[in-house]
């Protein structure tokens, strides 16, 4: 495990590594503020059989390691014609809502989903933590970028459940499943909201209000993988719904929603009854001020408004 300020008693900026350095002092390496270097060091370790995990303190700083990820870590295996593997696991806390402003609140995962050879996996509150992390750390042969939404650190962990609030919860696909929530009352839905990580909470709040206040049956699919996209799971989730909305915290253009929309059109155009809609953050940077940030980031209200605007719904 490598990263900045990850030793006890501090245990990392978000306390995720707390306790680890006391338990495994030789295996937890606190690094200088050198994202490019320690990402590259992890690459070297992985090339020689180790299973390194690195923490990017704020996901925003992953830009400093971009070259190591795009031109090194994800290149080695294919460039050396399968002769090597480089299964580095990169953990990156993304997302806003905490007033950290333009350089400490972004959701930059969209810049990584197009890098061949890289898994991009967003953890949610519904994923089994143990199997999620141990899969990528111990079993994967490819490098992985794990997206952790910062807000989740302060939230209650839900884990694998069969019901949540007014929804049935099903795990779909694998090895890392996506999570499908459907209204208990009907077991099916007219609108499907697709999201991941912290965006799942926005979608769930919106889906609940859409049912309770507007009688619109809405399901929520929380993806377990952004790259590769679980196409079969996506197709199943949107089958028989009249509207599909992708909810993401990042910026709009060339985002996760754009990729999902394109992929669904290729995969199952005939099943789509209306254009896929995207709910994203605004066009600009994430303000520090709480009120301005709240207006800038997507929330349940923006999802609900979008659904109500759609023709053929409600």
């Amino acid at each position, binding site marked *: 495990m490598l990263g*900045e300020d990850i030793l006890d008693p501090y245990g990392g900026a978000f306390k995720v590594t707390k306790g680890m350095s006391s338990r495994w002092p030789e295996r937890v390496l606190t690094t200088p503020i050198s994202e490019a270097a320690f990402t590259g060091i992890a690459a070297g370790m992985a090339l020689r059989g180790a299973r390194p995990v690195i923490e990017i303190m704020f996901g925003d700083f992953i830009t400093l390691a971009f070259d190591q990820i795009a031109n090194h870590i994800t290149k080695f295996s294919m460039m050396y014609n399968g002769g090597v593997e480089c299964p580095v696991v990169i953990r990156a806390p993304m997302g806003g809502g905490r007033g*950290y*402003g333009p350089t400490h609140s972004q959701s930059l995962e969209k810049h990584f989903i197009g890098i061949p050879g890289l898994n991009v996996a967003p953890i949610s509150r519904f994923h089994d933590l143990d199997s999620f992390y141990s899969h990528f750390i111990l079993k994967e042969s490819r490098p992985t970028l794990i997206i952790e939404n910062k807000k989740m650190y302060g939230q209650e962990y839900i884990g694998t459940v069969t019901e949540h609030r007014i929804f049935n919860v099903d795990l779909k696909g694998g090895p890392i499943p996506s999570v499908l929530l459907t209204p208990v009352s009907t077991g099916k839905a007219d609108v499907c909201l697709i999201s991941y990580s912290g965006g799942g909470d926005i979608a769930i709040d919106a889906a609940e209000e859409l049912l309770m206040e507007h009688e619109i049956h809405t399901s929520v699919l929380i993806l377990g993988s952004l790259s590769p996209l679980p196409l079969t799971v996506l197709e199943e989730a949107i089958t028989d719904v009249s509207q599909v909305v992708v909810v993401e915290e990042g910026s709009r253009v060339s985002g996760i929603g754009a990729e999902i929309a394109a992929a669904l059109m290729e995969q199952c155009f005939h099943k789509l009854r209306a254009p896929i809609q995207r709910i994203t953050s605004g066009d600009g940077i994430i303000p520090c001020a709480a009120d301005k940030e709240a207006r800038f980031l997507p929330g349940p209200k923006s999802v609900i408004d979008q659904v109500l605007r759609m023709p053929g719904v409600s």
Partner: protein
Amino acid sequence: MYAEGRLTGTIHTCIGQEACAVGVVTPLLDDDIIVSNHRCHGHYLARYMDIKGLVAEIMGLDSGICGGIGGSQHLYRENFYSNGIQGGMVPAALGMVLAESKKRKDSISVAFIGDGTLGQGIVYESMNIASLWSVPILFVIENNLYAQSTPISLNLAGSIADRPKSFGIEARSCGNDLEDIYATAASMTEYVRNERKPACMIINTYRLAAHSKGDDTRDFDELKHWKGNDPMLAVRTSLGPLADDLEIECRHFVDREIEGIDGSQGNHGRNSG
């Protein structure tokens, strides 16, 4: 104010490092450029004495210097720029003074970084180019012995001064004392201005408050020792009997600046020094 919900996000104060800001900024000319980092409040105040604009910015108000959008660590005004990405502003400081040099012959730029930021490769890329191209920039390294929770012993190998020197950049160190910092900064900025060459000044300082909001894991005795070396104490002593009056005057000044800043009650009586 965090507890009251009047502040959100994070903050990095310069408590204990005030002399770095005042000592370095005082000898600068109006047209000189300053780039700063996450710990930028002191640098900004030393430059513009704009308490109102800074506090409003930190509180996320429209009247803040960046409309509350930048917040505590992303400040801009005239010739002053800060950003929260460690090391990222250093090349910009080179670029700005290269552009300015085309317009006037005497402007320089100053880049503040912390000891921890010596971990960033871009700092050395910038030092190399600054020396190679004779860029009139003063690198100011505020060595407060820590980067967030990490002591310098786990962050930095070798000597700080040898780094700039290995690029052929003039380097000098000074202590956490206003007179010392000012004298060093005055002569080094003069060197940079006249010789049109880079230089590097290393200030051996210490932060007396937490890294950001409240995360402090440092040794209590060490902290106590450095509290005795608070540069504000030395300033107080040198002012003699004037100190008390001046402090009262400063507090009034601050109170006036922030009175009713967000439309709520003023801050009278709060510790704003």
